[in-house]
């Protein structure tokens, strides 16, 4: 598409005026008259049989209306489905009830719910619900969970093994036979708590007059929530409206369907009054999904030149106590196929064991599978470089897929990368980071006993999900197309209805930019509507960096369709042939007589007027188009990040001296928003490398259940970030865009870990598992010295 005034411009966001003045429309802000509030009673033990639940004292609390146990709720609520049933993996789905019956399986598992006239009364009464629990042994570690003799979570899932997924491409045995060096490493990709600043919330109402339900909910995908909640509650899909207005961050955690959202709907049906639930931060940490949590064993075969020939990866993926909505696909489908990353690696084999444990369910968290793959690979690149005594930059440069080889089929499963120019982004990043200069600085510093390290991370990620046929073949419950309606009103103002559901990513602005450019109308005349299932066609929502490439692609195509019709109308009005018209900046004019023209606004009015001199015979009135866009391929953004750190040899503390990110997400619609996504992504990737870690003790108590214990970085921990980009458009996307929501998170973690290990390389430290807390770094330094 032609890049005109708004496409590519740093347009200030349309969503901001309401958000900076306190008028954000977050779910927890809703208070309807007559509301009943619910509070869940959650297990404080990781694994126990529920003998009985005594609600009698709770019922006596002033203001309490009802206390319901899991058993009470079985009449009306079904199981929470697992919507990604990966084939060929002997997948065992788990009975996952909105409120536990018979057994609790993790600390935070709800087993009763209090309904009261105020949130305080509900919380008071929850304290008085007594459960007679028969404690059972717990297991939290994914490797231990799948060993014979481990405590069993389910009778129907032997050895807690939810699935074993394998993929292989190329001749791995031959690669290892040819290898001149083999590096092996066990790595832990830590468990993380997504920590959107807004916790989850849900308000359900029932309207007796229309016999319909409305659920206001913190959701990344309202239509998917409507479908799955309809299955759980039995409320037919057309009787349920899901509204998700402003959402205070998601990072994956608000994709999934959880019990409480189903419970409030059920209670609205039972009591016929509004029902409200707002999650506390402790509940959020205990029972909203966690992310990552792999134990990975990797072996890489390479030549002395640094050429990597093959990879073998075995990963124990912790799935938590229940298989959440998309859980099985995250450590498998979104992990294994991306293991060769931006490198031409001839042979890759991967095995992933999904382990059920007495911990919170684990599902998609920003990056979802790709950070885990990139971490393996980028650590391997450094380990190979170390083994052969070469600069890690040179090893990467030697292995990149060259530009001429696109579209490129990547091992192990032959997924087709759409376009890429990895070496160019890589060189740009090294140059901006002053890589050679820092290598010299590092040498000088070492002579003075100072520890400086430089870490590189090159990545390619898969997003723009996705072609429905490919996605369905992996067992995903629905296709991953997206929808758009572009509706031009009689006055020429435009409402765009998108199936995406941005919650911070700024598409109310970027989508308005696309439409304003395409139709030649002022951006003020374009309103983007999302997050209401009654207003928009079925849409798949916002996650996986898919909104701009897929939902944005749908909008671009819908604009084209609007313009095709507008051209017919303009030609009729001007009494010329369609091909005699030129459309430019919102006007159709006659090529040979430019003074003869109709604006898009005039055409819109004519489309609704539908008079004889307005509409050609046979053309329907109105000016709008609906598009369901199913992309022909995924998109593959890429880039290179470079981190320079200094490690304090006395304390082990890590300080980031410089951080450079060069990312290529194809065409950029709004570079200001792209940079914002990169900044935030890097902060989360850095957090995993240096600070955050969701920790369970051996009995299954979450030790990081508050923001005192779970170390989300503050402004003091995130450094200034230098961003730049290259532009390699996606050849198949209508806008040439690829998506940028997760890139920063994917790239940053290995960049920082590699930097710290680079700082310690001359001491003989090969690997430290994340988070690189001062204590761990110091132990590694001391261990290396004494060893």
């Amino acid at each position: 598409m032609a890049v005109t005034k708004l496409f590519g411009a740093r347009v200030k966001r349309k969503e901001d005026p309401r958000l900076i003045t306190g008028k954000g429309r977050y779910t927890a802000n809703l208070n309807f008259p007559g509301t009943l509030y619910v509070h869940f009673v959650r297990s404080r033990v990781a694994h126990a049989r529920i003998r009985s639940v005594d609600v009698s004292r709770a019922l006596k609390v002033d203001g309490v209306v009802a206390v319901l146990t899991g058993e009470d709720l079985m009449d009306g609520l079904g199981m929470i489905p697992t919507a990604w049933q990966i084939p060929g993996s002997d997948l065992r789905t788990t009975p996952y009830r909105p409120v536990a019956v018979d057994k609790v399986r993790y600390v935070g598992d709800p087993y009763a719910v209090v309904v009261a006239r105020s949130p305080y009364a509900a919380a008071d009464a929850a304290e008085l619900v007594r459960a007679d629990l028969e404690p059972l042994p717990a297991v939290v570690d994914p490797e231990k969970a799948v060993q014979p003799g481990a405590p069993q979570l389910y009778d129907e899932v032997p050895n807690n093994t939810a699935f074993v997924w394998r993929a292989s491409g190329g001749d791995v045995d031959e690669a290892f036979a040819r290898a001149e060096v083999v590096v092996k490493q066990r790595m832990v990709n830590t468990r993380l708590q997504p920590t959107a600043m807004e916790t989850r919330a849900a308000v359900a109402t029932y309207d007796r007059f229309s016999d319909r339900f409305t659920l206001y909910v913190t959701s990344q995908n309202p239509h998917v929530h409507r479908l799955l909640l309809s299955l759980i509650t039995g409320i037919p899909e057309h009787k349920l409206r899901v509204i998700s207005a402003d959402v205070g961050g998601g990072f994956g955690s608000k994709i999934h369907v959880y019990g409480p959202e189903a419970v409030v709907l059920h209670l609205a049906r039972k009591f016929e009054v509004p029902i409200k639930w707002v999650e506390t931060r402790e509940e959020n940490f205990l029972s909203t999904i966690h992310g990552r949590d792999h134990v990975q064993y990797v072996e890489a075969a390479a030549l002395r030149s640094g050429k990597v020939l093959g990879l073998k990866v075995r990963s124990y993926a912790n799935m938590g106590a229940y298989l959440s909505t998309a859980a099985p696909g995250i450590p498998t489908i979104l992990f294994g196929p991306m293991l060769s990353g931006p490198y031409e690696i001839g042979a890759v084999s991967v095995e992933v064991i999904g382990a059920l444990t007495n911990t919170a369910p684990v599902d998609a968290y920003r990056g979802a599978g790709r950070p885990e793959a990139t971490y393996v690979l980028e650590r391997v690149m450094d380990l190979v470089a170390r083994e052969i005594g070469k600069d890690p930059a040179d090893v990467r440069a030697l292995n990149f897929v060259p530009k001429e080889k696109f579209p490129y089929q990547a091992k192990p499963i032959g997924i087709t990368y759409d376009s890429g120019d990895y070496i160019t982004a890589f060189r740009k990043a090294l140059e901006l980071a002053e890589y050679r200069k820092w290598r010299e600085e590092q040498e000088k510093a070492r002579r003075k006993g100072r520890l400086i390290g430089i870490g590189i991370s090159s990545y390619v990620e898969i997003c723009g999900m996705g072609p429905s046929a490919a996605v369905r073949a992996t067992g995903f419950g629905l296709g991953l197309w997206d929808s758009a309606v572009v509706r031009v009103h009689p006055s020429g103002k435009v409402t765009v209805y998108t199936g995406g559901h941005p919650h911070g990513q700024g598409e109310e602005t970027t989508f308005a930019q696309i439409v304003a450019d395409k139709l030649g109308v002022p951006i003020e005349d374009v309103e983007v509507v999302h997050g209401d299932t009654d207003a928009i066609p079925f849409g798949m929502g916002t996650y996986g960096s898919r909104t701009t490439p897929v939902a944005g692609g749908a909008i671009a195509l819908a604009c084209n369709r609007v313009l095709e019709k507008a051209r017919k109308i303009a030609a009729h009005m001007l009494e010329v042939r369609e091909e005699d018209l030129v459309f430019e900046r919102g006007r159709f004019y006659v090529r040979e007589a430019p003074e003869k023209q109709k604006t898009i606004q005039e055409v819109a009015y004519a489309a609704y007027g539908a008079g004889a001199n307005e509409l050609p015979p046979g053309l329907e009135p109105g000016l709008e188009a609906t598009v369901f866009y199913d992309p022909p391929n995924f998109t593959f953004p890429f880039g290179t990040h470079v981190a320079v750190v200094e490690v304090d040899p006395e304390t082990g503390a890590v300080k980031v001296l410089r951080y450079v990110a060069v990312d290529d997400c194809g065409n950029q619609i709004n570079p200001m928003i792209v940079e914002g996504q990169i900044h935030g992504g890097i902060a989360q990737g850095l957090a995993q490398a240096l600070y955050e870690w969701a920790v369970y003790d051996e009995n299954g108590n979450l030790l990081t259940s508050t923001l005192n214990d779970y170390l989300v970085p503050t402004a003091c921990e995130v450094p200034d970030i230098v961003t730049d980009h290259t532009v390699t458009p996606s050849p198949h996307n209508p806008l040439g865009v690829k998506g940028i929501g997760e890139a920063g998170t994917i790239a940053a973690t290995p960049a920082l870990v590699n930097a710290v290990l680079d700082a310690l390389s001359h001491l003989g430290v090969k690997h430290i598992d994340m988070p690189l807390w001062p204590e761990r770094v110091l132990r590694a330094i001391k261990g290396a010295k004494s060893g």
Partner: protein
Amino acid sequence: MARRAAVRTVQRRARGPVPQAKVPIRVKINGVEYSHEVEPRLLLVHYIRDVVGLTGTHIGCDTSNCGACTVLMKGTWGNEWRAVKSCTLYAVQADGAEIITIEGLAKNGELHPLQKAFWEHHALQCGYCTPGMILAALGFLKLNPNPTREEIRKGISGNLCRCTGYVNIVKAIEAAAKEIREKGSWI
């Protein structure tokens, strides 16, 4: 052993609540006088949101770490405006105090310099931490009108943002500080 401890925890939590008589309070918020009868244990943030109905003040945690609930307050410890986390106070502690929330920052339809700067510099994404972040920044600028970037970072370190990586927030506060100094009026 540990298992038994966990069971004891379940039992220990089974204590009764102690409902208390309501107490009258008067609070001035964004220039408007409010008087209500509240439970002594009602948190100030719940009072602002659920009783007064100003939902621009958000709640992001239950341990006073996140700062989403930050408001400006004066009158309870002297006549100086201070940024406070409204989840750390009971509503009864605000009796007789004045409070400014995010809704009270724009004057006659004109955005406050911090609001403008946050918009201009793309210092917000989901917007959830933004009201608290802006008020924390304002409280900080009141104490330090001409801060360095490092000082800004420390000044807002009681407020968490999960979206922006703080890069643009720091820039926005720096720009707003300049405008506030030039205007000579911080509010």
